């Protein structure tokens, strides 16, 4: 498979991959998938996707050749190959963050190496090919257990673990209502796995009827077409007693439909990280204090928090307005004990009548302003 430009690929002969590192294996591919994430590449949404690249990060195959350091698999083994290229030895791999390996991608630090996923993810040719070079063959490739259906094994390279982790990252508690945006393979799997974590209700939102029907049957969940429910955020609030879901999962990413402005600016003009419609809906549909889990792929952006890198780096974001009442007793103790001195922050005092100037000074960081205080006339008497 040979990428030729946005929405253009063809099949060509490429040189046979070779062992280039002692930990390499050459795998003869027996099955590979096109993943929803490949469509981001295909549509030209992922920077540094070079003409001539071969995609494919979901594949299984037979080990044909091994490098001198390879001990965990041998020639002839039938293996499933996780989509991450991971060394197993760096600080991140040691902590189980195999998706964040520091020894597999010279070309970016936010994301580890991924088979067939642009030079931003290391420039490795992928498995939509006959043969593929598999670095770190002692780490990723796993011999398919005897008796396991090879199609099941194939989906273990990405879809199943990604869907499972989407649910896992939701921190689902027993009885939680979980909403999954996107009924693609990962979204379907996330919905299925949400039950394993004890969800009390699982809802999937998509727009394609056939996918909705599939996920209803496969994941035994509720599934709704956002085009027929009107505003999906409003719908989800309404159906959760006006609270919002406990957990929302974005299993869509940059290719989302459903919002014309996002489509034009994100997908067509590529002025932002792709269309962030699903992320918007997830954030706005979750309850206060809820959890949003993101496995949808997003590109770089200059006008938004780089959400793609939040995903790629496995960051944890916790956020809220302060719950003052809860904190007050402890803080009062600190101040009374002299451990905190809040008033030291006040640098400026303005008559209330000069509020406009006060705002401007504060907003423009003029006069080393840290904390302005407005004083009404009555207080100045």
């Amino acid at each position: 498979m040979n990428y030729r430009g946005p929405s253009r690929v063809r099949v060509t002969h490429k040189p046979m991959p070779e062992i280039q590192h002692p930990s390499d294996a050459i795998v003869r591919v027996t099955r590979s998938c096109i993943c929803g994430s490949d469509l981001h590449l295909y549509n030209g949404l992922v920077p540094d996707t070079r003409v001539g690249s071969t995609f494919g990060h979901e594949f299984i195959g037979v080990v044909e050749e091994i490098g001198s350091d390879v001990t965990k698999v041998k020639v002839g083994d039938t293996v499933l190959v996780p989509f991450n290229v991971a060394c197993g030895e760096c600080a991140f791999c040691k902590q189980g963050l195999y998706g964040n390996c520091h020894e597999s991608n010279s070309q970016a630090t936010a994301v580890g190496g991924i088979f067939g996923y642009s030079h931003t993810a290391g420039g490795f040719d992928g498995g939509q090919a006959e043969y593929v070079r598999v670095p770190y063959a002692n780490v990723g490739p796993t011999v398919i257990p005897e008796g396991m259906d090879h199609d099941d094994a194939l989906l273990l390279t990405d879809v199943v673990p990604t869907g499972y982790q989407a649910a896992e990252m939701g921190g689902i508690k027993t009885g939680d209502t979980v909403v999954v945006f996107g009924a693609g393979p990962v979204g379907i799997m996330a919905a299925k796995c949400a039950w394993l974590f004890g969800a009390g209700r699982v809802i999937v939102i998509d727009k394609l009827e056939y996918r909705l029907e599939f996920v209803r049957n496969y994941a035994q969940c509720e599934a709704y077409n956002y085009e027929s429910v009107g505003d999906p955020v409003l719908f989800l609030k309404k159906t959760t007693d006006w609270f919002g879901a406990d957990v929302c999962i974005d299993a869509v990413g940059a290719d989302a439909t459903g919002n014309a402005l996002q489509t034009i600016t994100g997908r067509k003009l590529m002025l932002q990280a792709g269309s962030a419609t699903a992320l918007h809906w997830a954030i706005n549909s979750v309850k206060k204090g809820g959890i949003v889990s993101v496995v949808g792929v997003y590109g770089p952006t200059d006008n938004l928090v780089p959400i793609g890198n939040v995903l790629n780096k496995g960051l944890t974001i916790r956020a809220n307005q302060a719950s003052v009442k809860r904190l007050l007793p402890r803080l009062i103790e600190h101040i009374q004990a002299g451990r905190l001195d809040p008033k030291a922050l006040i640098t400026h005092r303005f008559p209330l009548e000069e509020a406009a100037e006060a705002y401007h000074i504060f907003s423009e960081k003029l006069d080393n302003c840290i904390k302005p205080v407005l004083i009404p006339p009555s207080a100045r008497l």
Partner: protein
Amino acid sequence: MENTTNNYSHIKGWGIDADPTNEPTHPMKHYTGDDHKRLNWERPPLQPETVEILKSNERPNLSAVLGTSVPPTGLSGAIRRYAFKYSESSYGHWLPLLLADRVNVVEGLIDDLKQGHIPNIFAEKGWKADLKYNPKGLATKVLVTALATTAVLAYLRRKK
């Protein structure tokens, strides 16, 4: 509207992975203290750099293994080299890379023609499948393309 609350008998394995200590950070990261080892782990053998590898300026060295699928070449390669002067946090990095990708597409076409291969765009775009699964859409596409081409040609002739 179906509400499955408190009815889990039809869900095989319901709650089997429930873990009250599962906060968002917990399952992904096995804390070992290795966070603070920084770059001091024992590095695997280093793969020889046989083709040009562009390196993020946010790391001190190349990773131990390297993807060598499509080294930078031509004008797109020059643009990519320029992009890598900027960090991943800068649009000076990403915009040139996107530009290079588009330039690279044209270079790919030129390479094809140089090698005497006329790319079959219809096939490469997979439009053949439309014949079977989306004939109406294909007809619309063809019609729109034909109309646009005719309009452009008519405009050019009129100008002459």
